[in-house]
């Protein structure tokens, strides 16, 4: 019994005095036919760089996803792999464009309150938010045909 107490006491101290919370996300966009560029530039059909201008933007897109975990991030509550191809293909169908440019990805942690509580009480889930923003552009056909 004493040996058990000697073992349990440090474990209990470690659980009370340390902790972590958060989540991760694996983002891909592999199956989009049109270029999905993080810069304003893409190649035309001849291999020349074409820089999209703000006048060529037809739609600004924003996609967000929350990822939840609990028990010190050991138990993911949703799929951490996120393929945005489906979302982008749907958007490109509804707003026809030649490419998606200026793609930025923002990783945002949960607020301090939730982080603090989830650190101390690991049964409470914590979250992170991943946001993808970009511009669908329609580049004049003369430049790339």
């Amino acid at each position, binding site marked *: 019994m004493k040996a058990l107490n000697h073992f349990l006491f440090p474990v209990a101290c470690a659980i009370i005095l340390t902790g972590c919370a958060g989540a*991760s996300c694996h983002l891909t966009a592999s199956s989009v036919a049109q*270029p*999905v560029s993080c*810069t304003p530039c893409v190649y035309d059909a001849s291999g020349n760089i074409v820089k999209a201008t703000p006048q060529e933007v037809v739609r600004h897109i924003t996609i967000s996803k929350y990822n939840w975990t609990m028990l010190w991030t050991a138990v993911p509550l949703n799929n951490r792999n996120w393929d*945005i191809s489906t979302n982008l293909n749907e958007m490109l169908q509804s707003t026809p464009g030649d490419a998606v440019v200026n793609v930025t*990805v923002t990783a945002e942690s949960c607020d301090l309150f939730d982080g603090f509580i989830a650190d101390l009480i690991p049964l409470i889930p914590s979250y*992170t938010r991943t946001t993808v923003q970009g511009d669908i552009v329609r580049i004049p056909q003369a430049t790339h*045909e």
Partner: protein
Amino acid sequence: MADERANPVKSAGNSRRNSCLIRLSTFVDCAGNSGSLFASQRLMKNQRSQFPGRFALLKSVAAACCLVFLCSCTSTVYDMRQLDQPVVLNNNPFLISRTAPPPTLVRVDTYSATASNDQIASQDADFYSAVNTAQLNAFLRIGGTPNCSIRNVTLNTECYWLYLVLLFDNRADIEATGEVAEIKARLLQPPLRTMGQSLTNQPALQPTVQN
């Protein structure tokens, strides 16, 4: 003293009144006001009514600060918009054309970089135009070579709260991996040159259909 001797009851009343006055004067002096009792009472009332007002304002400001602090969160942006070459999340950096096939891309190197909330090299008023190491790495890989691009970029975002004996740390990282690809144009037709043919008749470099 002669009065006290003559009328002890009256003298007792006078002494009680004097002691009351002394207490009152002490009270008035403590209040810092040399005016009448009513004036000092009015002043006390005013002070009492002002202090809770100021305290309530302080409380509401403190509560607002706490709320802002508790709702604050850390974020990191993977932003490559200052680069003038394609960095694509998919396999295809070429605009789709019905007439000309896209050129061939050949993998020449790998790309990996991390954007972190504490690795921002410079930042201006626009939050999204922060220069980070991911951008610098990409520039070091493909900067200055227009036929090079980065494709198949995958992003791993990680946000963590760490707690160690009353010490809190909040991290937000984005790790990017991809491959550096170079455009390889090959001759569609072999350069057949017959006698007497000028050099200007050579076939031009044409893109291939390979993927």
